[in-house]
């Protein structure tokens, strides 16, 4: 219920929302700061924290189970890995259908667009999570740098 309310309120403030909570250092000193982001016209156009992505790392993140694990749910043009899932759409040719900013929003927090999606928000604000295992508390699934790596890799899928 609480989550549904959260989701609803997120959608209402879709245009202004930056989820600007910075994790306090006392909470967990190992955490990197949570970079604010903004949705404009259904996209996050600015790279998180102004970081520059590395497409080779991005490709690795996409096929690493404990990182992005994109192939668990998406068919991708990565032939050396077997058994791509099909819960989500194929990512082949993604960059010809979506802008960089649209891709970034979908990876960061797709629930802003579709609250019932199965896709995790890889940079969703951790304060929205419920019943989180201790070792993942207060953390995003991927770091801001890993998000940017993925985005530039996915932009190569013309």
């Amino acid at each position, binding site marked *: 219920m609480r989550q549904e309310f959260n989701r609803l309120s997120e959608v209402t403030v879709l245009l202004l929302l930056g989820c600007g909570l910075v994790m306090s250092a006392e909470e967990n000193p190992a955490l990197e700061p949570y970079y604010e982001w903004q949705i404009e016209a259904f996209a996050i156009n600015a790279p998180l924290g102004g970081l520059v992505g590395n497409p080779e790392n991005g490709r690795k993140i996409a096929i690493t189970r404990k990182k992005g694990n994109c192939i668990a749910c998406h068919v991708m043009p990565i032939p050396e890995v077997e058994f791509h899932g099909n819960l989500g759409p194929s990512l082949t040719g993604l960059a010809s259908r979506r802008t960089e900013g649209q891709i970034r929003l979908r990876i960061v927090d797709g629930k802003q667009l579709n609250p019932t999606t*199965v896709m995790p928000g890889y940079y969703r604000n951790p304060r929205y999570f*419920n019943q989180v295992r201790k070792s993942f508390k207060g953390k995003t699934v991927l770091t801001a740098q890993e998000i940017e790596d993925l985005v530039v890799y996915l932009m190569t899928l013309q």
Partner: protein
Amino acid sequence: MIEADKKRLIAAFLSLVILAVPGSAHAWQEAKSGYEFMTPESREMQDDDFENPGMLTVEEGQVLFVTTANNGKTCGSCHGDGGSKLDLERIAQYPVYSESLKKPFTLRNQIHFCWDERLQNKPMRKYSDPRAIALETFVRHQARNKPVNVNIDGQLKPFYEAGKAFYNQRAGQLDMACTNCHHDFPGRKLRGQTLSQGHSNGFPTYRLANSRVNGLHERFRQCQHRFRAKALKSGSEEYVNLEVYINAIGNGLEIETPALRY
């Protein structure tokens, strides 16, 4: 207002109504056993009692069933040797509502109760004690092919509703609920694995993924752990409610214990 606008308004209103009632309709209309989502090879393996590795746990349970307890009795003293006097229709109705506890009582709760109270054995401390799982596997195996038949019209109703809420509640860093996969995507592929509707009619079930027979609550824990949630305890109130809900949405499916699953 012109006609097209009216139509658009009505359509918008209707879609709001539909979207505002989460879980009002299942993505699947008809309950299908996880068996239907397995490969022909795995189905054959389940169907052949000599090939089905879960049958070893049935045998373990059978041995416990006739083992003499501290008070000189065995399970068979009441339930017949080999379970011949077990009420098979009753087994298919679990979890049932306990009048004395005022809450649902699972088949495994019943086994713990018999073990501790009726047989006066040294109590099994954990709900997930392997002996309790083996006994549950043996007992539920006796009711194989009986249709699951949980009655949620009466006092179980609020527990069913609580279980349903839990089924729809996202959890963990990956922020997923049971419904996001087993309601929305049965039949689709998650890596090499085909998602099922997530029914419980095969439980306790042999999992190829961990090469042992798993109870339902232990499977809940594995799912929750996987999406980076803090798994709850086997036998917890939340998981018992979830068992009520999941068993009930599979009403009519035949018990397959011990099934074979991924």
